[in-house]
């Protein structure tokens, strides 16, 4: 499919997953991502692939675990409360080094929260989320097209590094409709899967596990994971830098909030305020180097996010005290407007009394 079609984010990512060669989808309904499950229930069987509506998110992630262990491309999707239930499985996927794609269309929390858009799961997504020393790659798309483009990338990264890739979207991106083009061309050269469980025909037994009882064995495994994670931090960071060269204030925002912030940056420029934006596309690995070097010239950083202040901590770590880092956060389903962000920019850049 290479024509431009109008789709909502949830359906676009589902179709993009199919185009990317997803063999199996397992999921349990939850708002605001129900379109994904419904779409997959129709389309996967049409393609001769697997769809199962599971009894819970616990089961869904473990079905992904089983399919992935046999070398298949498997995914699930959910929203915040369901992603919490999946954390056990995501930890086991990390320990067993299995590739998997998990989509989180975030909603407000904690608890049942609400069904409004949110970015409140940033900590959970970028810090592993479950128990143990591990990371998952986290992608934070900002448009329906980018959401669709994330899917082949997510499957490729998962296969290349044998780990979970989480696509972190929010209720707005999932629901809104935009034109998209789905690109079926292969992107990366991927390693074979000699570890997959396929039955021990013509070879020795394969074992997939995460239990390492021998003295020092787990520490060695953890250290190997850390080396892999460092390699990912070196090679896989994606971010967009927008009008930052001469900027006196740099907004850092991801996902749908970056779209809003971009409008605020443009309006600020029209008013003569030198504003710019850094938009992380990979949330883990975080573009710390890019933000850190932008902080070498003195300016101000303003993190804008739909949470109480989660991503801002990564910005502070990257800036490392070189410049002030401020926060404009809207939790619980609150969505910042461009006007609101612009006003914040004005307050921070126009000296008191000058206006």
């Amino acid at each position, binding site marked *: 499919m290479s024509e431009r079609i109008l789709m909502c984010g949830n359906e676009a990512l589902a179709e993009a997953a199919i185009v990317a060669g997803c*063999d*199996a989808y*397992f999921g349990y309904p939850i708002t605001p991502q129900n379109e994904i499950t419904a779409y997959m229930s129709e389309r996967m069987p049409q393609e001769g692939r*697997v769809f*199962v509506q*599971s*009894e*819970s998110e*616990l*089961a*869904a992630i*473990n*079905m*992904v*675990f*089983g*399919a*992935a*262990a*046999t070398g*298949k491309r*498997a995914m699930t999707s959910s929203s915040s409360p369901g992603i919490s239930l999946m954390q*056990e*499985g995501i930890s*086991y996927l990390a320990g*067993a080094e299995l590739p998997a794609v998990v989509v989180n269309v975030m909603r407000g929390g904690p608890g049942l929260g609400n069904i409004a858009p949110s970015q409140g799961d940033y900590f959970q997504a970028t810090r592993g989320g479950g128990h143990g020393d591990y990371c998952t790659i986290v992608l934070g798309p900002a448009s329906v097209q980018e959401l669709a483009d994330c899917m082949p990338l997510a499957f490729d990264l998962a296969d290349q590094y044998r780990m979970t890739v989480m696509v972190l979207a929010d209720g707005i991106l999932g629901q809104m409709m935009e034109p998209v083009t789905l690109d079926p061309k292969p992107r990366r050269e991927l390693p074979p899967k000699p570890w997959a*469980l*396929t*039955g*021990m*025909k*013509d070879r020795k*037994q*394969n*074992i*997939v*596990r*995460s*239990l390492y009882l021998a003295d020092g064995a787990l520490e060695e495994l953890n250290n190997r994971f850390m080396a892999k994670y460092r390699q990912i931090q070196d090679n896989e960071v994606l971010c967009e830098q927008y009008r930052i060269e001469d900027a006196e204030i740099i907004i850092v925002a991801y996902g749908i909030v970056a779209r809003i912030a971009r409008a605020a940056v443009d309006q600020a420029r029209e008013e003569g305020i030198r504003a710019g934006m850094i938009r992380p596309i990979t949330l883990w690995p975080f573009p710390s180097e890019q933000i850190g070097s932008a902080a070498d010239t003195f300016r101000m950083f303003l993190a804008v996010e739909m949470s109480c202040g989660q991503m801002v901590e990564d910005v502070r770590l990257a800036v490392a005290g070189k410049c002030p880092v401020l926060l404009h956060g809207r939790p619980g389903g609150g969505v910042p407007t461009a006007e609101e962000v612009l006003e914040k920019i004005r307050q921070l850049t126009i000296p008191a009394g000058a206006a």
Partner: protein
Amino acid sequence: MNTVFQRTSVLKNCSTHYCPGCGHGIAHRLLAEVVDELNIQDRTIGIAPVGCAVLAYNYLDVDMIEVAHGRAPAVATGMKRTNPDKIIFSYQGDGDLAAIGTAEIIHAAHRAERITVIFINNAVFGMTGGQMAPTTMLGQITATTQQGRNPSNGQGYPLQVSEILALLPGTVYVERCALSGVPGIKRTKAAMKHAFGLQMDDAPGLSLVEILSPCPTYWRMSPAKAMKWIEEEMCKAFPIARLKG
């Protein structure tokens, strides 16, 4: 010279970590013999539980995976749906299947997943030190029922999962056997063989063999006494029966 007995090659030539008199070792050997006799070693994928049998892949020579506590039927679903030509089995204890994994086994059965479940009921959580399981007998002393399991203390009754599963249209075969004595062991092997055979024939549902299995360590009994206790006590709450199919 006539060979009258040969160890199956599906069982690795090593000693196990199981306690003396433990039923897991017997069940492993039966399972290995069945896989061997059905000639399916090269297309079988096994799922090890969290429990004393977590290291089953060290003894059974087939492709295997170790999964989170109780989730084996969901993992098996993911495997079988994407690999209908493979023979998928889970091997689960009574804590794994009848406590933490109740939802997963009920729903795998309810969806009629074409998998085989080997369910080891030893009336305790062996691995964590002999605590009460849902299958613990009334009056049985465990680490968490030190006065004996008593329903009026809120400790509930022995849970008969196989009877529940047999009621579901999604199961094609449910049988309860016991590892006490040679006839019981032979019957257990025949049941396993039947269950795998159904999967090989693509029978439309889940097959399960529950095995009453001794845990002399946490029953605080000699291996011989433990075998007797299965017959004299356990079989009262868990009658040996072909419950379905």
